[in-house]
């Protein structure tokens, strides 16, 4: 949304494709921040601005069926609300977000008193309904378990935001619910990076109890007739600790969407081993993809906070604007060209070209028919399949000609 607005304000036309029926993504579930800001107000403001901006065409509840073309000349088929539209556009920004892990462990889904941080935040935000169980019984003891569905064998990465999130909710409970006298946070490591460290200190000062656990000795949650019981090995005492809890809150990790794979194939961009989109280079070319004209921001790239997502969206739109303001784009230099003297028109390369850029032409030359191939310079991408197929060195890719590669081989063998 930020990227769409930034570009529209600069005068570009934006087609905003949203999978859900309303805009906002994960931000819809975040009601307050550590510094007291209320993101819902900002979200409402953004939504209004998008609706009012005539340059932004919103497709809600939409699915992308196909994307073809390349920088400056993309064609995308979008199906939304029964109809299919085809739009032409110059660049693509991938901001597909990510989702919350649905925990399978710690009795989640089986016991109503085991909830996620997001559920807890929803209850805290609506005021009175955050208490455990039926009949709004006050939760005296709350246990938070961190790193659920992150930093394990299947998802080795850290979800980055949950530490600060748990502390945010813990501090909120301390203010809102005096009945809650004990609040445990079971953690593996606390990473409240940047200035968020001060909130960690504040939580400890207010009496939130932080207990460390190991990956191979995870806490156990069980249910007897009245209450939930959480068992965890206290590392200081070296003994198991039994906590009767009214409410267990899980910090569920951020997981990538499965649909990323389809989109990645449409755009011919890579995903990393975890299923997030992989930028061209994390330091030298952030927010760019290897494929020209495709840019990346937000949770689709990796877990990150709201501020970081917004910054990245602005970065991506700046990179995209740099393409959009140009009247014409220069062709790639490294594309194929035909060596007329060597080409005898056998046309092996015509079939092998993945972009249908090569055509066979016949003409009369000195009274006889001569056949050669011709390349289309605007659709050739320089993959070189033709060069490797040609038995007569009749078609070469500039910058990667057989002689040039041969020279590299010879040079490499000499140094040995």
């Amino acid at each position, binding site marked *: 949304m930020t990227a769409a607005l930034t570009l529209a304000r600069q005068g570009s036309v934006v087609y905003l494709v949203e999978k859900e029926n309303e805009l906002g993504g994960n931000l819809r579930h975040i009601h307050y921040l550590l510094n007291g800001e209320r993101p819902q107000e900002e979200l409402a403001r953004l939504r209004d601005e998008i609706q009012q901006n005539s340059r932004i065409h919103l497709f809600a509840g939409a699915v992308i069926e196909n994307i073809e073309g390349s920088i400056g000349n993309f064609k995308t088929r979008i199906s939304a609300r029964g109809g299919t539209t085809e739009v032409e556009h110059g660049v693509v920004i991938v901001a597909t977000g990510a989702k919350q892990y649905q925990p399978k462990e710690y009795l989640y889904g089986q016991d109503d008193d085991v909830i996620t941080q997001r559920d807890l935040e929803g209850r805290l935000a609506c005021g009175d309904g955050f208490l455990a169980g039926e009949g709004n019984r006050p939760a005296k003891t709350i246990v938070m378990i961190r790193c659920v569905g992150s930093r394990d064998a299947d998802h080795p990465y850290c979800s980055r935001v949950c530490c600060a999130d748990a502390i945010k909710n813990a501090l909120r409970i301390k203010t809102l619910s005096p009945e809650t006298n004990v609040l445990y946070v079971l953690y593996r490591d606390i990473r409240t990076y940047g200035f968020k460290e001060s909130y960690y200190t504040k939580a400890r000062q207010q009496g939130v109890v932080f207990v460390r656990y190991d990956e191979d000795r995870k806490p156990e949650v069980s249910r007897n007739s009245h209450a939930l019981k959480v068992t965890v090995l206290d590392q200081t005492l070296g003994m198991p600790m039994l906590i009767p809890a009214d409410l267990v809150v899980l910090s569920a990790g951020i997981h990538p969407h499965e649909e990323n794979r389809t989109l990645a*194939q449409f755009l*011919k961009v*890579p*995903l*990393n*081993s975890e299923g997030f989109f*992989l930028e*061209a*280079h994390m*330091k030298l070319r952030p927010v760019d993809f*290897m*494929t020209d004209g495709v840019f990346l921001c937000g949770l689709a790239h990796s877990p990150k906070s709201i501020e970081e997502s917004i910054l990245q969206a602005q970065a991506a739109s700046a990179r995209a604007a740099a393409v959009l303001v140009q009247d014409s784009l220069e062709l790639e230099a*490294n594309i194929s060209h035909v060596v007329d003297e060597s080409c005898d028109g056998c046309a092996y390369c015509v079939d*092998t070209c*993945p*972009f249908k850029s090569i055509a066979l032409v016949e003409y009369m030359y000195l009274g006889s028919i001569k056949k050669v191939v011709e390349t289309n310079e605007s659709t050739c*991408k*320089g*993959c*070189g*399949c033709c*060069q*490797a*197929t040609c038995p007569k060195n009749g078609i070469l*890719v500039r910058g*990667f000609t*057989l002689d040039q*590669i*041969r020279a*590299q*081989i*010879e040079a*490499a*063998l000499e*140094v*040995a």
Partner: protein
Amino acid sequence: MEDSFQPLIIAFCCNWCSYAGADLAGVSRIQYPPSIRMIRVMCSGMVHPNLVIEALTKGADGVLMCGCHPGDCHYQDGNRKAEKRADALRLMLADFGLEEERFHREWVSAAEGPRFAQVVGSFTEQVQKLGPSPYKT
């Protein structure tokens, strides 16, 4: 270790996946044998079979050809063409008096830095077992 044979391997890496994967192995500081000399090509489908034969007959102990995983090719299906050429190449190597293990084709994506290192490691070992190239003077 000094007397152990350190093979010389020419590696053709495609610009989009394998070269980036090798770069990732580098920036992640993953150790792998110093046996390879990498040549960047735009696509594994660009590597002419003649180039592989030439490298081997000019004294390379092995040739590694790396491309994107099937379906991930930046140029739609260049890697599939490379695979077919690789299959044909293997049959031809015997005619040149070379073991077919001296040539290896592998898919390495841009995200697979550790795998690139592992591929280089295992291919180096494989070539080490074969010994120096018969074309080496």
